[in-house]
């Protein structure tokens, strides 16, 4: 397995220089591996993980999860409509689901009105969309693998033990 991919799977918190140290290669080699992973469409890109409830990060403070029921198309199934949806900038993530609805869509916006407007004017009016059910997120407790409240008591190990 690609050694750089291993480190990304661990959480990807290392810089390329640190990855180079850990994997025992040069920074240029790490970058080459990253390039290859990008070419192979495995590594899509970096993103910061932010606590969006903080005022400083309020630019994308309103988030909604939308369950979308759609009519699958002959020949294309759900994919054509799903990839059409996914191209909207407002949509952060889009998944095909099993169960009571078909697509699960995560939407980000600066205000309630903007998100609501996007759902009512864009999303639900698309051909093939049967219904939407929108849930606004109230509070995050864990984001992208990080706890919002760092209440772990780490760093309490004694410094020297047998």
């Amino acid at each position, binding site marked *: 397995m690609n050694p750089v991919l*291993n*480190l990304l799977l*661990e959480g990807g918190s*290392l810089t390329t220089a*640190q990855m180079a*140290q*850990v*994997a*025992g290669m040069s920074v240029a080699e790490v970058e080459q591996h990253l390039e290859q992973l990008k070419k192979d469409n495995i590594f899509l890109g970096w993103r910061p993980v932010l606590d969006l409830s903080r005022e400083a990060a309020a630019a994308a403070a309103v988030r909604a999860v939308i369950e979308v029921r759609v009519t699958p198309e002959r020949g294309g199934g759900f994919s054509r409509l799903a990839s059409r949806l996914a191209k909207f900038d407002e949509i952060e993530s889009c998944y095909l689901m099993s169960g009571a609805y078909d697509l699960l869509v995560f939407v980000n916006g600066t205000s309630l009105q903007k998100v609501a407007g996007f759902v009512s004017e864009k999303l639900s009016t698309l051909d093939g969309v049967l219904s939407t059910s929108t849930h606004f997120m109230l509070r995050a407790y864990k984001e992208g693998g990080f706890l919002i409240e760092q209440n*772990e008591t*780490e760093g309490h*190990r*004694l*410094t*020297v*033990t*047998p």
Partner: protein
Amino acid sequence: MNVDPKRWVARHVAALPKSGIRDFFELVAKMKGQDVISLGVGEPDFVTPWHVREAAIYALERGKTYYTSNLGMIELRRAISTYVGEHFNIGYRPEDQVLVTVGVSEAIDLALRALCNPGDKVMYHQPCYVSYHPSISLVHAEAVEVPTYAKDNFSLTAESLRAAWQPGCKILMLNLPCNPTGGTCSLEQLEKIAEFCREKDLLVLSDEIYSELTFDGVHTSIATLPGMAERTIFLHGFSKAFAMTGWRIGYACGPAVLIDAMMKVHQYTMLCASIVAQEAALEALLRGWDSVCKMRDQYHRRRDLVVRRFNEIGLTCHSPRGSFYAFPSVKPLGLTESEFAVGLLEKEKVAVVPGTAFGVNGTGHVRACFATSYEQLITACDRMERFVNQARKT
């Protein structure tokens, strides 16, 4: 009247040497708040996986606050039996061949107390875990050291075992992979050691606490070799692989008669291991294996990092097949292990433990634990490089 309380301390306790680790701990403690990176710990940097902690909390919520069977909860003993069967290929009956203890430390103490008559000889390889020798002294038995050497990557060999053996030897203590050296034995060596134990009728206390953290090849327990299960007490626990040091929970498995003898001592001295820790251990065995593998893979990459860096900067270091300790040599610098450790701590604020804290064959070596984040390890290695270069100049 001048009353010196010292006179009340038992002679064999007064004679126990102070742990070299303790001295060094006090030195490091003085530097609190000074950005010291410690490679001196003997425990994982991971917190116990949440599902295990949550199971313990749930146990408390359900009012699980009472004693358990002296042997430990039967559900836990069943899970231990299954786990040891699947991972080590040894079959133990949960009813009478498994004893849950307060960490492997208690299991070692119980075994020695249950099996040693005063004057019996107990062999152990050194450098080794700091408590082996004192545990033997505490039961009035006699410790017989078997040296291991840097040239063998601190693997125990049947030859050194034979050379150290003397009439009256009854027990051999093994710790593979080994704290502090990371030393293990090849299957071939282990077979020779087993043969020697059968020849000399030795009972083996096999402390396999680091076995899940074996990075190259597979770990083999000596108990699986022909004729060994009946003369081996298999000691294991949750501290290292499951990151559960503070829970103090471990177990011993072996022939029913020996487990019963250990249980006698355990029931009068400890009664039982903490029920909360037992509940946590059960959860760890039932659903914790994925976490163990994740942590092991990280230790593996950290090992490769520190061993490579140590060798690059001139601290000769074999690649430990298991455990989370590297045991590099500082001899090329012309410093003793203590001068190196103290100098490194004072000048570059990195704590490693002098090898002599673990036995005389640790002379010229230091123990560096790599159970620390990549970032810290990278910085620690850079600081050590600076220290080594400086030491070379002077």
